[in-house]
Structure formats: C-alpha cells, structure tokens
C-alpha cells in the first residue's frame, strides 16, 4: 500500500511540476491543484503508523486499541484541503481578472512588471 501511495504521490508531483512549467496560466493553476493533492497524500502516508508505530490513542491499559489510525494527520489534511480550496478559488478569480486585463493566457506576455 505504501509503495502504491508512493508511486501515486510521485506521479502527482511530477505532473504538477510539468504543468507548472508550461506557459499557460490555466495549466499553471491545474499544476498547483495537483501539487496540493500530492502533499495531502504525502501527509497521509506519514501518519499510517508504518514509520512510527502507533497513534497516541490508548485504552485503559495504556495500549493502542487495534484498528485505529492516527487521527492527527487526517486533521492536518483536512486543514490543508480547506486552505488549498480557498487559495485555488482566489487564484482562479485572479487569473480570470488578469486574463481580462492582459487579454492572453500566456505567462510570457505578462512581463510588464519585470522590465526595467
């Protein structure tokens, strides 16, 4: 399972970086979305007990109950999902306005603030 997740995370990161290096703003944003999914899966793997043993949940004997996953990473992922959702909405609106102002989807044409 970890191997499968590792391949999935790697593919998500690879795809995200490929898309972000394209010149199109829309592809750039899609790359950002893929990137956030990759990170969410990465955090998910970090909490499955494979690397560190049990979650900090114990029964009356001080032993972890069987079949309980680490809830903290899931809380972290939830937070990260909400944040990336909000940011994606904002960057889409921003790209739309930039497209209206500049009239193109090409990042190379958005260089007016870089010139001397």
């Amino acid at each position: 399972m970890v191997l499968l997740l590792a391949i999935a995370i790697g593919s998500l990161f690879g795809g995200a970086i490929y898309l972000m290096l394209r010149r199109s703003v829309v592809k750039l944003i899609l790359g950002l979305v893929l990137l956030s999914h990759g990170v969410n899966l990465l955090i998910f793997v970090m909490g499955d007990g494979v690397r560190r043993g049990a979650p900090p949940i114990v029964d009356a004997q001080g032993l972890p109950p069987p079949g309980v996953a680490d809830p903290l990473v899931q809380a972290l992922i939830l937070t990260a999902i909400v944040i990336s959702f909000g940011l994606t909405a904002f960057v889409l609106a921003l790209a739309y306005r930039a497209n209206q102002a500049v009239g193109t989807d090409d990042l190379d044409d958005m260089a007016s603030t870089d010139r001397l």
Partner: protein
Amino acid sequence: MANHLFIPLVSPLLGATLAVIFGRQRLVARAMVLASVLCNLGYSLWLLWLVGTQGRQVSQGGGWIAPFGISMVADGLGAIMLCVASVLMLATVAYSFFTLDPAYERYFYYPLLLLLLLGVSGAFLTGDIFNLYVWFEVLLMASFGLITLGGTRGQLEGGLKYMVLNLVGSTAFLIACGLLYGVVGTLNMAHIAERMASVREPGILTAVACMFLFAYGSKAAIVPLYFWLPTSYHTPPVAVTAIFSGLLTKVGAYSLYRVFGTVMQNELQHLAPLLLLIAGLTMVIGVLGAMAQMNVRRILSFHIVSQIGYTIMGLGLASAAGLAAGLLFTAHVMIVKAALFFIGGAAEQIYGTAEIKPMGGLARREPALAIFWFLGILSLAGIPPLSGFFGKLALLQVGVGQGAYLISAVAAGTSILTFFSMLKIWNEVFWKKAYADMSKLPRVGPGLLLPGAALVVVSLVAGLAASTLVDYSTLAGTQLFDQAGYIGAVCGADGCEAVYESALR
C-alpha cells in the same frame, strides 16, 4: 498560564470584523481599526517588558497539556517582532488614512490590513509548527487581497506571480511539516526539539531542514528564491508596499530563526556554511540589482533582498550572539525600510511617478522630506548614531569574533554599495536641479510626511538608546538559542517526553 497571549490575535480579528460591519460609516470603521492597532501596540510593549523581566510567557490553547495541544509562546524574539510589527502597522494605517483613494476603503482595505496583522502576530507567538503554517496562510491570504486590490494591470500580473511562488513555498512548508511529523511524531516545537536527538535516521532530518530552508527562504526572498519580490512589490499602493517590506519577508526570516535557532539546532550547525554562502550572495546580488534600477520603489525592493542577507548572516553564524545581532539588525531594517518607502512614496505622490529620472529639486522645495530621507539612508547604510550602525556593528563583531572573515568583509562592502545606491535616489530626486517648473506640483502635507518621519525618529532614538536595545537583543538571542529553557517553559521542567509518557499511562 499566560492567556493574555491571545490578546494580539483577538484584537485585530475583532477590529477587522467590526470594520467590515461598520464599513459604510467611514469614521467609525477607521476608529475601530486604529483602536485595535493601538491595542496591539500597547500590549506588545507590555509583553516586551514582561518577557524582559520574567522570561518566556506560555499559554496552552484550549487548556490541553503541553505536547498535545497548540502552545503559544512569547520569548524575546517573538516580543520584539510583535512590537515592531505593531509600530509599522500603526504607521501604515496612519499613512493610508491620508493617501489612499477612498475606493480602497469600500473594498475592505483596512480589514485586510488587520488580518495581515493577525496572521503576523499569530506566526510570532505560536509554538506549534503546523499552527505556524496556518498563520502563514492567514497572512498570505490577506496579502493576496492587498496586493491585487485596485486591479491595475501591473497589480494583476505581479500579484499572480507573487501568489503562485508563495503557494509553492507554502507547499514546501507543508511537505516539511508532514515529513517532520512522520519522523518525530509530534508538531509541538518544544517536543520536536526534544525528540530530534533520538531520531534513528538523522540523515532524513537534514533533508527536512533543507525543505524548511526552501520554504522559509522563498518567503524571506533569499537568493536564489527572491524573484517574486522585485516584480510584484512596486505594483500596489505605497502603504501596502511599505507594510509588506516590513512584515512579510521578515516573517520568513523569523521562522528561519525559530526553526533553526531553537528547534533544529543540530541542523543549523550542519547548514551554517550554506547559510553564510546564501547570506553573502543575497547581500551582493540584492544590492547589485538595486544599482541597476531607476525607480524609487524598485530600488528599495531590491534593497529588501539585500538586507535579508544580513539577517541570514546572523543565523549562519550559528551562535546565540549571532542570532542576537541578526535580530537587532532585522528589527532596525523593518522600521527604516518602511520609513524609506513612506518618504519615497511622498515624492512619488508629488511627481506622479516613481521613476527617478524626471524628478529633481525636491530638497529645495520640501526640505523636511529631504532631511528625513537623508537620515533614513544614513541609517540604512549604517552610519552612527543611527540604529543601522549598531545592528551592523554587532553582526561584524560576532562575525570577526568567530573567524568568519569573508562574510564580514562582504557585509561591510555591501554597506558601501547600499549607501551608493541610495545616494543615487538622493541625487536624482532631491539634489539635482528640477527640469520643469515645479510651482504647479502639489505640496507635501503633514499626513504624507509624518509616518515616515516618525519611523526615522524611532530609528534615531533606537540608535541613541542602543545599549538598552543591545542588552535586550542579547537576552532574546540567548533565549532563542537556549533549547532546554524553551522546552522547560513549554512542557515543564521534566520535558515534553515525560509529560507525554505519563499522559499515556
């Protein structure tokens, strides 16, 4: 338990909410904003005194015992940064009252400023690494709004780049948090620091540390991650640029200090040569970039990059004295850089452009503006008795004392180049003869002059009261580097692991 640590978070949040609700009554909304900024300023001065006399202040969010919940910790570093942030926010709010187009106010400019203050204050006070990430997002959200508010073509282009590169930095931060949690199994900074020593594969911690360096470095605009800064910082209104220059990159620098100075001290020793190399490159490339520019705000933007190099140099010296010197310098540069943006913005207001070629003759027409500008650049270059001298002196003393001669020489040389590049603005804007008839240009009102002048006066007073400030920053540097003391303050004398074990039994 010091629950008052939540005051600087509640006050801007409340102020922002009320300012939105009372948005139509401009005076009421402005009063709310001013009140909450003044509340933060007063509180942070009190906190500065409290930390100075009684040591670290700790509060546990929700009453959870230490390594399980979110801890809020104020030590010398946090208190100084909080205080400077409130001072800058007060100056920015005052400057905005006088200069900003009323349309901005309708689109919630002041609430966004307060949310920025909220995010920054939270980042300075939190003792939890994931919570730090959340505060980063809070302040980034507010900054995205501020940088694009107005919607000119330049702002949209610059804002898009600013946003995308910051999102990549945040993602790296999140990855580093996840990896760190996977390795040490905790997010509380004190607990992380304690568990760092017993990690079975120390190599992976170096990888995590590099990830943090990338994440915070891209926020702090170190070379080679600074590109977003000069392409975006000159596009929004001057007040926004000034507060960004004072706060945003410095939050990245603060996080570097916190994570490497307190939490990952072993990794700091590993990465110290790399940090010094980055520091030197950042200083030189930043100042060279500034020398090539012909626009007041772009020159100042490149100087932000250059000054960050000094901050990183303090970190790269990897000692309590180095951190203290870097902190002293950072607090100084936050104030002076914002002051220069305000004064440069006043010149921009007069001429209607930030390009320096068409300007000229301002020293004769606005002598007060010229005097404060000149004091500001003297302070930035590091001429006694202004505050910049003592920051740089402390850095050079520690650098030479630790045998880091090369970086000290680069730092000293960069000071001269800084002064040279600032003199270019002085010559073009203030000293040279005016090309055109100046009698029709608007005069500078007190509202345009006062915020910048007040900050320059702060720098002057800070230079005159340098011994107090050096004492305080030494205390802050010692506290920052004192890992055992930090753990003891957050989790109790036995340490976090003992609390953790006993809670599980």
